[in-house]
């Protein structure tokens, strides 16, 4: 790979794009095969993979807005990568379509005959009905796409000049956008994840999903940073100091996720009301307890202790392993939310679980990489760029 340090552009890349595209196509073909093999399995696996990649893209949007909002200096060199992650949201809008076709397989509240038998679902029908569900899904994506495109457009315009005024516009736009983001990701997680078990409810659920999503995005970003460093680009631009700060942020969100997960579990366990505990009961019976324990240890305990010391956050091999580990755990977390609705009686891993991960993921990375190829790797017009490059982390 060749990198022009003056323009911060990759002039000649390796085979990332091709490899990702090939994996993506193979994955999508397998996914499509999965549809004909086992429809119900297909939709649940697909939803898991869709939400996994969507959560990373949404994390990119949040990271970008947060960066503008707080006027962060250290993360200027990371901003363009985050923006290129967030601009994958329009791509994921296309991948939403199969989910909408799968409403009948995924959500039992969508069947009138089921609702007719179920008093609670009748009460929820003004919210949980197919038409409104689709309208909301479209609405969320319209908001996300508009925000992502607007922020990226300003950012690219800044590459050409007017740096101060554009920084200000991005900051001004980010504040109200945060409100829209908070509400849309909350209700999207209610719609696409919580309503899979339509009787169950939890006020913290939106924040829980958000915390895991941002953690996954940070791990993904860190993985990209390590890759770019490994192939010799961005040396002296994104340094070990940035790894360290990013590592600290990952550590903070591991704790934040743990705090959300514990709050949700603990209050429901202690309250011990059957209509709430049933959700965790389904995740504690028939071997699901092993997945639950894997999440407790894998999503919190292990990364917490591994990333606690100063040295590990600055260590390339450790962070290579941990970023992949955290992303894997994020997938397990989503699997644990979604799949017990299908396989209540046993944990049944299927090859169909992995096909859409490769399919959507391959296309996602291909799309992301094509953005990386056409834009400078850092926001060259940002007034804070030089300061960010000189970051010293303690």
């Amino acid at each position, binding site marked *: 790979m060749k990198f022009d340090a003056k323009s911060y552009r990759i002039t000649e890349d390796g085979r990332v794009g091709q490899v990702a595209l090939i994996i993506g196509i193979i994955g999508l073909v397998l996914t499509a095969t999965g549809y004909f093999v086992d429809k119900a399995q297909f939709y649940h696996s697909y939803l898991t993979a869709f939400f996994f990649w969507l959560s990373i893209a949404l994390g990119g949007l949040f990271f970008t807005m947060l960066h503008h909002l707080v006027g962060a*200096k250290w993360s200027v060199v990371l901003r363009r990568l985050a923006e290129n992650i967030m601009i994958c949201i329009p791509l994921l809008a296309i991948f939403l379509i199969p989910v909408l076709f799968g409403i009948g397989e995924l959500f039992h509240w969508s069947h009138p005959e089921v609702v007719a038998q179920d*008093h*609670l679902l009748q*009460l*929820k029908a003004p*919210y949980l009905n197919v038409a409104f569900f689709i309208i909301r899904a479209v609405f969320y994506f319209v908001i996300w796409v508009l925000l992502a495109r607007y922020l990226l457009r300003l950012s690219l315009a800044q590459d050409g000049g007017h740096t101060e005024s554009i920084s200000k516009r991005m900051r001004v736009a980010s*504040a109200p956008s945060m*409100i829209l983001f*908070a*509400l849309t990701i*909350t209700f999207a997680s*209610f719609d696409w994840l919580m309503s899979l078990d339509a*009787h169950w*409810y*939890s*006020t*913290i*659920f*939106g*924040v829980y999903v958000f915390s895991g999503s941002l953690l996954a995005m940070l791990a993904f970003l860190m993985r990209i940073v390590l890759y770019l460093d490994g192939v010799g680009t961005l040396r002296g631009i994104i340094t070990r100091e940035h790894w360290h700060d990013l590592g600290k942020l990952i550590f903070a969100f591991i*704790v934040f996720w743990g*705090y*959300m997960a514990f*709050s*949700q579990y*603990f*209050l*429901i366990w*202690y*309250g*011990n*009301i059957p*209509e709430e505990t049933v959700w965790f009961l389904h995740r504690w019976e028939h071997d699901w307890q092993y997945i639950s324990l894997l999440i407790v240890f894998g999503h919190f305990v292990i990364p917490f202790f591994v990333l606690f010391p100063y040295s590990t956050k600055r260590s390339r091999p450790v962070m290579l392993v941990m970023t992949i580990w955290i992303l894997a755990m994020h997938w397990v977390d989503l699997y644990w939310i979604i799949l017990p609705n299908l396989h209540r009686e046993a944990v049944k891993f299927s090859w169909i679980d992995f096909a859409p991960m490769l399919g959507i993921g391959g296309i996602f990375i291909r799309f992301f990489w094509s953005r990386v190829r056409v834009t400078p790797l850092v926001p060259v017009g940002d*007034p804070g760029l*030089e*300061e960010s490059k000189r970051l010293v982390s*303690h």
Partner: protein
Amino acid sequence: MSTTEYIIGSGEPPLVTGNHTFASVTEHICGIPEGKQPTWWYLAFGGALSLLMVLAGSIGYLIWEGTGIWGLNNPVGWGWAIINFVWWVGIGHAGTLISAILFLLRQRWRTSINRFAEAMTLFAVMCALIFPAIHVGRIWVVYWMFPLPNQMSMWPNFRSPLLWDVFAVSTYFTASLLFWFTGLIPDLATFRDRARTKIKRLIFGFLALGWRGGNRQWRHYELAYLLLAGISTPLVLSVHSVVSTDFAISIIPGWHTTIFPPYFVAGAIFSGFAMVVTLSIIARKLYHLEDFITLNHLEKMNKIMLLTGMMVGYAYSMEFFIAWYSGNIYEQFAFINRATGPYAWAYWIMISCNVLVPQLFWFKNLRRSIPVMFIASILINVGMWFERFVIVVSSLANDFLPSSWDYYSPTIWDILTFIGSFGLFFTLFLLFIRFLPIIAMAEVKGVMPQAKVEHTEVAHE
């Protein structure tokens, strides 16, 4: 642009204005306790002391007569005492957030406000701790709250969040005190060095722990400060999370909801910053600290209030939505009753003060207007008190059994005890102003342009 106004390269407005030198900072801050206190200080101290007497009297009568003097009834077994406890603990959170979390986030503007925000934390936690202690009824056995071995083999119930409170709040107080004291050491040494009487020199010398300001001492000091910041950071979240479990682990509609821990933490930071703004506006005016606590500092705090105010608003709306979504008629009743029932007045005070008032801070000129933020910060703390009132009282007064519903009204003793707690708070705060440096001198000097002496590359055209 001169270097004293702008730190080269950062483009950030200066954190300390007025062309101060290190010496003039020391003179100004040390001058406050060393000089003669202004008349208003004596008047304020007299007022605070009188209120403290009111507190002592109310508690004395409570111990003599019992909790029957309060407005508690059946079913409202928790009244103002718990509301006041949660309110005061919440106020404390801003101090810890400023001193610990903002330190870890390298927010250098914290240095002007951290000292008295931390002092505020300690005094607020003291005020808070009074209420559960006197609520036990038989205060002479209050030590039973601690797991002390005894011949009757009686132990506190470890499954009760009230016991977790004992541990959470006392840990919080201890850590905050250590953190505050550690931060004070260099400044105490300055006081010692400037002391004119032998007594003062001895006392400050004792408290300064032999500080000489050497390189090694600073290195150890910085490390200790960082470690204490790391230890205090989880406390910012854990204390009010534990307080929230007092409510949330029960199955009372309106209390039992999973968002309570982060929601309470956001509310605590919200009210705490409001209190810091209220106090710092008064302090900067009376002691001419405008160069240290600038409008930029106040504006940043107002932004945090806007953020946390909306987090609280998010939690209110989630509770409401999920109450509807749950299909649970008891949950739905609890929330509709809050908004339209006998305590609707309190609910709408809460919404107006906590959700609407901070919206003023969207506008830069309002965010930088001292009168606006002064009134807003007080209204926010009124709103946060009513938030706890709404939670505690409305859910209890209209519980599962309509035949036992009862309207809760406080008695004069509830009111006097609460007002009296301000006496304790302000007495301690005024004594703190009188005897200790209210701005962290050593830290403020570290963020002044003069402290940045390393070589900076300037581009030559």
